[in-house]
């Protein structure tokens, strides 16, 4: 519990799961959830390094900003998803490929 590596491993697992989710999910919202996992893993790392690096609060600030960024990202991404849904009647990201040649 006060081992850095514990946190890092948890974070790594979360990250792998997130990547897996992004890779395998077809639904846009599900992809988004994967991204959230990745972001959380990164955040966990920031805070962990802060805790074991002499309680330097810069890490916290980074975490904070990432959270806010995530919120913005989620808002815009969902807006896009809804827009895609309105236009294409699907939110499966592999079907939204009209840009492809």
């Amino acid at each position, binding site marked *: 519990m006060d081992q850095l590596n514990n946190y890092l491993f948890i974070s790594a697992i979360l990250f792998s*799961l*997130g990547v897996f989710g992004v890779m*395998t*999910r077809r*639904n846009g919202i599900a992809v988004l959830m994967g991204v959230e996992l990745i972001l959380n893993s990164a*955040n966990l790392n920031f805070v962990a390094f802060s805790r074991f690096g002499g309680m330097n*609060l810069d890490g916290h600030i980074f975490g904070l900003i990432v959270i806010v960024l995530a919120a913005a990202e989620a808002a815009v991404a969902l*807006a896009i998803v809804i827009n895609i849904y309105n236009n294409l009647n699907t939110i499966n990201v592999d079907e939204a490929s009209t840009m492809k040649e």
Partner: protein
Amino acid sequence: MAEMLFWLIAALTIASAAMVVLNNQLLYSAIALLFTLFGVAGLYIYLWADFIAGVQLLVYIGGINVLIIFGIMLTNRISSIRLSQTNVQQGVGGVVSFWLLILVSMVITKTPWYQTTSAEPSSTVREVGTLLMTKYILPFEAISLLLLGALIGAALLSREAS
């Protein structure tokens, strides 16, 4: 006790994260994500980051997760279709992800991390606040602008095409 609770929280986090990516029911995934986020918040508390934990609860769980659930509701006709979805390339994805995990773990174990010990602070809110208003004032302002932009952009994108 605290030790055990820690491992419990860790397990909950990882398990629910796995649910998020593996469950075919979209709404279940979303609920699982809720637990993952809770778990991460708990880990934050173990990392003495009470403020971040609070923000995690408020923004992630109160904001983003709710938003995602809204998104799911808005993009599926609840009455007609089951809120499910299918996955693709699970095999190759799983392999790649697994290898990624292995490699990252190797990096974690092999790296001699810089570590110092320090006393647990009573609360980080004051320091974080001070930092935000002094050293990080510019990023703070920038991020607020970004938020504003995202807000307007989201509103613009999702409005009815006239």
